[in-house]
């Protein structure tokens, strides 16, 4: 047991070194930019994992929370507010929105909830597209002021890369802590059986609402960082298609697994670029690939490693 723990630690340390040295190896700004977007997506998917992976509630509104965070930040900084206020504003907006959406709807069953969250995302998108004087409509907002914290402002993609790694690490740590708290256990109980959880004294409605709000905060903060590190936003980045994409990152990576969230986000952010030569066929293969993963590897890519290890152990 101890050696396996040591092995895990060594593997994690090697992984950390690899991740931290990537910018030295790949000086190509485009690749770093992609990795930055992958990390932002990973934070959003970690947030989605609270409601969907752990609590078992379908949420197609995550892209809208992502967008609300990004647009709040962009509008606030462009209006001249100091950057330090934007994470708080973004969180305030998404918490308010998740309460408005969550309070009346979290009692609903699977497809009703799926539909309501799709509807919420669509309403947010339509408001962004048609409230042109403020949101810039379909052409989006450009030249958004960058991160600036007590005089420190990361410049260029590589500095942003390290900032985002730090934020992602904190996001992972918070998720681990919540998972092993009473709230985390209540989430799993709610997913396994709402009736059994209620019988054991878990307030399932409160648990679902909290999972939903925590997830929205993750998305809101990621949106804030998206706006101030990419510095250009448009409604396309936060549409219903994006919501489905975030959901598939979670499924393909492995629902309920923190490593899975990161693997899924990285794979499905980088893959379309690597497979760009496929053109329209990429989306056909992407859809079929999602079906194959759901059917053959219900635990996602994260589970494949442990399945292989189990097989090997069984063979020994």
């Amino acid at each position, binding site marked *: 047991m101890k050696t396996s723990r040591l092995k895990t630690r060594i593997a994690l340390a090697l992984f950390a070194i690899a991740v931290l040295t990537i910018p030295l190896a790949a000086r190509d700004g485009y690749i770093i930019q992609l990795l930055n977007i992958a990390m932002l997506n990973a934070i959003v998917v970690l947030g989605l994992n609270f409601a969907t992976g752990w609590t078992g509630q379908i949420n197609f509104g995550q892209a809208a929370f992502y967008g609300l965070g990004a647009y709040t930040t962009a509008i606030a900084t462009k209006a001249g507010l100091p950057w330090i206020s934007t994470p708080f504003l973004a969180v305030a907006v998404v918490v308010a929105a998740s309460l408005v959406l969550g309070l009346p709807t979290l009692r609903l069953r699977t497809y009703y909830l799926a539909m309501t969250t*799709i509807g919420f995302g*669509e309403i947010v998108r339509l408001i962004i597209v048609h409230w042109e004087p403020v949101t810039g409509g379909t052409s989006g907002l450009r030249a958004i002021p960058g991160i600036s914290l007590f005089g420190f402002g990361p410049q260029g993609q590589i500095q942003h890369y390290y900032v985002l790694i730090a934020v992602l690490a904190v996001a992972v740590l918070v998720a681990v802590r919540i998972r092993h708290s009473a709230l985390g256990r209540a989430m799993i109980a709610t997913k396994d059986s709402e009736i059994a959880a209620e019988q054991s004294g878990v307030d399932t409605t409160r648990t679902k609402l909290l999972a939903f709000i925590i997830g929205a905060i993750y998305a809101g903060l990621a949106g804030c960082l998206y706006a101030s590190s990419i510095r250009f936003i448009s409604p396309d980045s936060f549409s219903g298609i994006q919501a489905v994409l975030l959901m598939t990152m979670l499924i393909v990576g492995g629902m309920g697994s923190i490593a899975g969230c990161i693997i899924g986000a990285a794979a499905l952010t980088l893959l379309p670029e690597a497979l760009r030569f496929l053109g329209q066929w990429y989306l056909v293969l992407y*859809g079929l690939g999602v079906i194959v993963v759901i059917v053959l590897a219900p635990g996602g890519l994260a589970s494949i490693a442990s399945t292989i290890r189990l097989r090997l152990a069984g063979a020994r």
Partner: protein
Amino acid sequence: MGQLVINGLALGSIYALVALGLLLIFNTVQIVNFAQGQLLMLGAFIGISSAVTHELPVAIAWIITMVAMAFVGIVFMVLVYFPLRRRPPFLVILTTIAMGIVLENLTLIIWGPLPVSMPSPVHGAPLRFSGVVISMHQIFIFVTLAVILLLQFLLLTKTRFGILMQATAQDLHTARLVGIPVNRTIAVAFALGAMLSGVAGLLVAPIFLAEPTMGGSLGLKGFVVSVIGGFGNLPGAVIGGLFLGLIETFGARYISSNFRDAYAFIVMIAVLVAWPRGLFGEKSSEKV
């Protein structure tokens, strides 16, 4: 005013047809097909291929589309539902969405992104009543909806197959135990569901142009209608569809046409907050 009512009802009839297709599948396997809109789009394109590209008579194009859609429905069921029949329904929502993406992009590859039109099977001068114009195609839409509603009502309540469907929906395992050919019943339900969305596609294509991305929004409207009317509820689907068509048409005219697609969702969320199982109630309840 009268004109808006007619236009709204015609649009609503199409939403109702999408919802009726969803209902057939839902009433058999308790699964909501999130690719119903893409099936509709595919139906429209098969019709256009036959009637416009190959210049076949429109009636023949309809028949070809129906046969093709029945086949598509069965393939769809085998790929998307069958491997997951013993797993949580949540996963089937995702595979149907993924299949919707596949269908939409295959259509883009085969037929290209440009919108195309399809002729209506009926011709003739529009009827006029004191300023209100009703086109022959609109009348054809109303008649089709009425006929399909009647057929589906008879199928579900008066035929042996309808009873098999109900038994399958209530308890798949017991249904199999008492000798019901469960898989065949499910395959037929998917085939009929796909054919119904094909009809909706053939009816939509002459009014709006058909394009590969049309499915997403029409499919969502079908769900909104199902939610408003209560999933699996036959009269609910039709009344919900007509109601939504009217709301959208009047909302676009008197409030703002920019938010045309938002009215459906606002109404749906409002209905769910007040009546969590839809206005007319759900057909079957949750199993413990």
